[in-house]
């Protein structure tokens, strides 16, 4: 058993909407550096759980801890996110999208950088863009990019903010199979090189097995056919997959 404080810990989390119990007594721990995949049927509460980790919704009971501290109940820069759609800003160029996090952090009033600081942010963004294979598209707008390129951009955009945990909400669900395979390779590489902790929601079991170092399966353990909403899902399988977790570089 790991004795260090896990990066994310869910303790006895319940969530229900009216009479519909979505999650019940959900417990899980995510260690730093892990690539956790959450799979489960539609409506099993995976997205609800992600929204709670993101801080968009509070749990009804129990708590979720980030490095031992209760989560802030609103999205912040500790948790990065890539959604399936609408992850990049349509009014910014590719380069502008990636620089945004730097500009937001570096300039609290205008949200824009100038001069040397702008050039530094630009270089950092360009380096990330070349890692995700978008260095030739820096001046284009997202509407001119394919779905796969938009998701590459969304990854680069999140990474520049250096989140403690990167949340992926079915990030490759809308992509063609061939593109999806390329994206799997890319996200694995990024996870290694940036020593990320990733929590990925997917409905594709194969994708979960292929990418994760750990697989959580959400399912209902009790079911009442007369009242299908009466019981919620919890983690029914917690499978460590045999992949080498990259050693964390000393701080």
């Amino acid at each position, binding site marked *: 058993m790991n004795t260090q404080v896990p990066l994310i810990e869910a303790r006895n989390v319940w969530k229900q909407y009216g009479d519909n119990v979505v999650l019940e007594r959900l417990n899980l721990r995510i260690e730093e550096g892990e690539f956790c995949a959450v799979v489960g049927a539609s409506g099993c509460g995976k997205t609800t759980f992600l929204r709670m980790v*993101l801080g968009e919704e509070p749990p009804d009971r129990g708590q979720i801890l980030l490095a031992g501290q209760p989560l802030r109940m609103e*999205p912040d*820069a500790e948790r990065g996110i890539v959604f399936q759609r609408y992850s990049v800003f349509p009014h*910014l160029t590719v380069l502008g999208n990636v620089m945004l996090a730097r500009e937001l952090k570096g300039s609290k009033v205008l*949200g824009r950088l100038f001069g040397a600081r702008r050039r530094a942010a630009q270089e950092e963004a360009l380096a990330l863009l070349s890692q995700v294979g978008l260095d030739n598209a820096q001046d284009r707008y997202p509407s001119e990019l394919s779905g796969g390129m938009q998701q590459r951009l969304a990854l680069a955009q999140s990474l520049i903010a250096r989140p403690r945990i990167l949340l992926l909400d079915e990030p490759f669900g809308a992509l063609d199979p061939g593109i999806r395979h390329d994206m799997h390779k890319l996200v694995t590489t990024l996870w290694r090189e940036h020593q990320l902790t990733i929590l990925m929601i997917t409905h594709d079991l194969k994708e979960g097995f292929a990418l994760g170092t750990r697989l959580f399966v959400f399912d209902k353990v009790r079911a009442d056919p007369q009242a299908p909403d009466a019981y919620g899902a919890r983690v029914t399988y917690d499978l460590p997959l045999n992949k080498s977790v990259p050693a964390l570089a000393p701080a």
Partner: protein
Amino acid sequence: MKRLINLQPPRICAVMLALLPFVFAFFAYVSFSNERLMANPNDKLLPAMSSFGAAIERMALVPSKRSGELLWWVDTASSLRRLGTAVVISSAIGLVVGIALGALPLVSAGMSPFVASLSMIPPMAVLPILFIVFGLGELSKVVLIVFGIAPVIARDIQGRVREIPRELIVKAQTLGASTWLVILRVVLPLALPRLIDAVRLSLGAAWLFLIAAEAIAATDGLGYRIFLVRRYLAMDVILPYVLWITVLAFTMDRLLRFLGRKAFPWHHAGASV
């Protein structure tokens, strides 16, 4: 033969089709006018083209005997100044209020029903109040237009801001944005193209309120002139003025559209949000 809904006119054909109603209206007017003038050469209702030419020359090129001004251009300048001032003020109010209502649930809870009620008041009904409060000068005319179109623009912007996918707002926060920066870097730029469209759509109403205010109390302006010469049944001045107002309104609409396309290329590149 294709179905009617699938028939596209070729380019040349489309231009001809577009011109056709104008040409038709012109010839219809000329023939009716000729008919009436044939029966009564002093008829004032449908003046001949030559009368229009004379009236335009008198209004636009010859200084007025009373004031020494070129009335046509003085009227145009006064009206455009009032309209421009009002539209700029309305856009600013509409943008700020609309974004506040759309992006901040607390503001929306407190102000949304109020703004919705405000936009339901018929502006012409409060015109007497405006004249009493602001006097008969420029201010009351500008305030009338602002009162008429700012709430509409605000509600349009509010609607647009609420349409912004929740994901983008969340994403900006995960990149470190405060409320202010979410508004400045995400909400505002996404709302601006809609502002252009909202202003284009409210231009018609703005002209309506302008003409109405000028008709009631003014000493110059396009609306003032039309209502002044109405006393003499001077159709030869009224019709060119109406046409001129239409040309001005049409040009403004096209300019705004052009401005929108130049300023927000991403909005017209098939963006889905």
